[in-house]
């Protein structure tokens, strides 16, 4: 495609009547490129597609929360506390008389923001460290891998809770905490890939042609190391969502009054005997979200790496 458009663009105006001959070998190679092939396999995977549709719906809910929610998430009604689901309040009200349904809708915002946003930070930290470690080798590699090993030995969630309770609750701090801990896995993956790729002939060839360090890494090695990184990121999303929910559940995640599903389950489960509706609906939301991302992630993995199935 890119080839033919470029050819058209540079053609002199008079020559446009001449049919553009596209080299059949390039088109057939492009037709079965890894990514296009992967997308085809992904679309054929019904479970993954179902997960993908739910994810799209969740993102839409998160974006249009202001329009969709019948009430603001802070609106209290002290005359109607802890009410069961009714026509006016479809999922009931909480201990401050706030509409659980509206709070659930706004809760999607936090989950999606953390799930997708945290991965940017994780990639931004993990990929350079892993690439550097693998490419440089020697003492840099030794130092970085030792550091990675220590971080790996830490129980992940324990460290996140530690960082959060020290920094204090808040969305920004959740990003920091997940970023500080989440990069380790991606760094390991990237390092292993770079280590294997840097010995390949095409890298040697590029080096021989005079490509510098940055160019070698960003143009030749990393694009070929992308598959496992993409898979790791896809699985990192539900993990980040889980982390936020878990942190908010124990009260060191999102600051009230901003609603988060994890926080709603955490507060609601204390009154589960009397007011089951407070924690059941957000619990269902978390379960559905986690399952959708897992199915989608499984699909992406199988699509990119058919051998793994």
């Amino acid at each position, binding site marked *: 495609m890119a080839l033919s458009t470029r050819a058209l663009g540079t053609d002199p105006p008079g020559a446009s009547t001449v049919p553009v001959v596209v080299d059949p070998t390039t088109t057939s190679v492009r037709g079965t490129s890894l990514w296009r092939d992967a997308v085809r396999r992904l679309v054929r995977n019904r479970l993954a597609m179902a997960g993908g549709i739910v994810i799209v719906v969740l993102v839409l809910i998160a974006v249009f929360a202001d329009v969709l929610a019948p009430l603001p998430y802070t609106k209290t009604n002290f005359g109607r506390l802890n009410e069961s689901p009714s026509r006016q309040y479809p999922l009931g009200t909480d201990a401050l008389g706030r509409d659980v349904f509206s709070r659930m809708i706004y809760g999607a915002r936090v989950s999606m923001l953390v799930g997708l946003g945290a991965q940017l930070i994780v990639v931004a930290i993990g990929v350079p460290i892993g690439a550097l470690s693998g490419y440089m080798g020697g003492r840099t590699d030794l130092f970085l891998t030792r550091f990675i*090993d*220590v*971080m790996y*030995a*830490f*129980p*992940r*969630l*324990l460290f996140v*809770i*530690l*960082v959060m*309770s*020290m*920094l*204090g609750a808040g969305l920004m701090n959740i990003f920091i905490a997940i970023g500080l801990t989440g990069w380790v896995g991606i760094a390991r993956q990237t390092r292993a890939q770079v280590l294997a790729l840097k010995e390949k002939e095409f890298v040697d060839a590029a080096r021989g042609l005079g490509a510098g360090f940055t160019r070698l890494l960003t143009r030749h090695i990393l694009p070929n190391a992308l598959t496992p990184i993409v898979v790791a990121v896809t699985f990192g999303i*539900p993990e980040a969502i*889980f982390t936020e*929910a*878990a942190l908010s*559940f*124990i*009260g*060191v995640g999102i600051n009230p009054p901003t609603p988060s599903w*994890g926080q709603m*389950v*955490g507060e609601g*489960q204390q009154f*589960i*005997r009397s007011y*089951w509706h407070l*924690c*059941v609906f957000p*619990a269902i939301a*978390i*379960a559905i979200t*986690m*399952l959708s*991302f*897992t*199915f989608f992630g499984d699909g992406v993995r199988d699509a990119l790496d058919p051998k793994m199935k």
Partner: protein
Amino acid sequence: MFQYVAARLLWLVPTILAMALVTFLVMHATPGSPLDPIAEGANPLPPEAQKKLAEYYGLDKPLYQQFAIFVGKAVRGDFGFSFVYKTRTVAEILRETFPISLFLGSMALALAVAGGLTLGILAAVHQNRGWDYVSVSLATVGVAVPNFVLAVFLIILFSFVIPLFPTGGWDSPRDWVLPTITLAMAPMGIIARFTRASMLEVIRADFTLTARAKGLSEGPVIFKHALKSALIPVVTLLGPLFAAVGTGSFFVESIFRVPGMGRFFVLSMTGRDYPMIMAVVLSYGVFLAVMNLLVDLAYGALDPRIRY
């Protein structure tokens, strides 16, 4: 063999030290102090009192000294007094709560191994038929859904809809059922997935074919020949699973009101209970490292191809 174990044990020392250092730095590099009032918006202690307290707990010394003192005492098992539960030493609290967490964790892990292996074998033997779907979906739910969410569903189902078990407490064996199941679900799912994958591979191997060819019936083929080698990759999983069960128990313990270590952990973190935080993080670290070593040794014993 001996050399390998010795080397691994020696490596434990710098790893634990680094862990302690990272935890220590995170605690001290972040704003806030254990002398701040716990209640939000409360008046701070008068400066003289703060100074006295800092002196008493050694918080006025330079950081490197504080760390050195901590390490020196910790080696002897002395973690000092808790900042939050002022009259009790950290060691005392841990002695009381750790066995409970360990008991819950062991039950959960036993259930996870038994259930996970059963599900995995069933799934592999009946690949792409009924049992396979049942066990794969159960495994996926166990892995994907957080345990505090599972706990809510289990309580609704088995305490309210069918009132079989209490919603919390830790007095009789009946109280143990729901927390154990909740905690076991995630590791069970992981074990089931791995067992299924590795069984599927082994079932197609030549030696399984040989076993069938010499006329063995399905039972001995699966349990005597296939399972033995299918188990090897599953054993490596146990290390990370200990960690999953350990951190998972914070949530399970707080939902089901189990008087284990998990509940103290969160409280000590938010209360900036420095000695308690260090002790909890390090005991988890040591526990995990030792378990990983044991798992690696078991791996070597199971697989004759591995020599240390």
